[in-house]
């Protein structure tokens, strides 16, 4: 492995202790033989690891929690006083949902509307067809050529064949 690859590994996984044992072995056996990479390790440790060793963890000021509480209380008051708060919140969720989810929801709604409309139209056409068939039967009855129409002029049954 070239020095450049070893130095890349030193700069990330090796210095951070995130390197897997196999790669660690490769880096360490290279370091035993390469003075330049040994020097790079020392310099990198000094420049990119040690400065952060002394970082201080700070305690957040108590005023932050007080601020959070104030906002929560204000929001809860609005929630109680506004009967439409729940509906508005749900609408807000809809508006703030990711674009893909919103697109999918829109497609689902459009599909639902299309299917409902199609079913409605179909039902209406069936009703019209049934009504006109009944009318035809009634007219045939009045004109004395009474035949219960079934598309080919008869019932196509054994009893019908017997009488005919």
């Amino acid at each position, binding site marked *: 492995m070239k020095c450049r690859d070893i130095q890349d590994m030193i*700069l990330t996984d090796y210095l951070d202790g995130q390197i897997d044992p196999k790669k660690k072995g490769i880096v360490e056996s290279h370091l035993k033989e390469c003075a330049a990479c040994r020097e790079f390790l020392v310099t990198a440790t000094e*420049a990119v*690891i040690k*400065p*952060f060793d002394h*970082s201080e963890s*700070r305690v957040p000021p108590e005023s932050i929690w007080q601020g959070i509480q104030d*906002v929560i209380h204000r929001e809860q008051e609005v929630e109680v006083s506004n009967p439409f708060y729940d509906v508005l919140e749900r609408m807000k969720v809809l508006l703030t949902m990711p674009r893909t989810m919103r697109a999918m929801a829109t497609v689902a709604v459009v599909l639902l509307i299309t299917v409902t409309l199609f079913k409605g139209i179909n039902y209406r056409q069936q009703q019209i067809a049934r009504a006109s068939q009944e009318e035809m039967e009634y007219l045939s009855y009045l004109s004395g050529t009474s035949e219960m129409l079934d598309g080919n002029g008869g019932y196509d049954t054994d009893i019908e064949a017997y009488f005919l």
Partner: protein
Amino acid sequence: MREITDDIIEKAALGDEASFEEIYRAYSRFVYNVALRMVREPQAAEEVTQDVFLVMFRKLKTFQYKSSLKTWIYRITINMSINHAKRSHNKNREIYAYDDARYVSSEGNQIFQDVDKEYHENVIRKLLDLLNPDQRACIVLRNIEGLSYEEIAQSLHININTVRSRLKRAREKLLSLRKEVIHNEM
């Protein structure tokens, strides 16, 4: 840090303030310190911390347990800190005083300790100032908060190799600064 159980999360999601305060007490230090490193100004860090917990409070109802609460909080913190840092990136690169920030209480010779701490803080601040917000986030999470590459990848929603490359580029910048400083001193 007290472990936050699912029971506490559920109660907090239903609006129980005491449960939410437990979550706040467990994670506020992490959130505040990451924000402080990312946005530099204590006042801005306080605003980011407050916003992170308000977003959490509002969104706890929809928390899916797909990720751990810890990862979820890390992600919100980093996103909000990076957004804030990007907004102010290049706008104001002056060094801010950490006058309002509180050190962890310590005993002994306070004056010398404070001077020492101030020096180290100044160094860290200047080094972080060299990096863009994405690189800074990786350095803060790894070098200061001690997160693993896996945790950083989850928090930033990026590939683990992207974590590596951001860390590498950030550290190359720090190394080139060191070379520059040594060259100028000679």
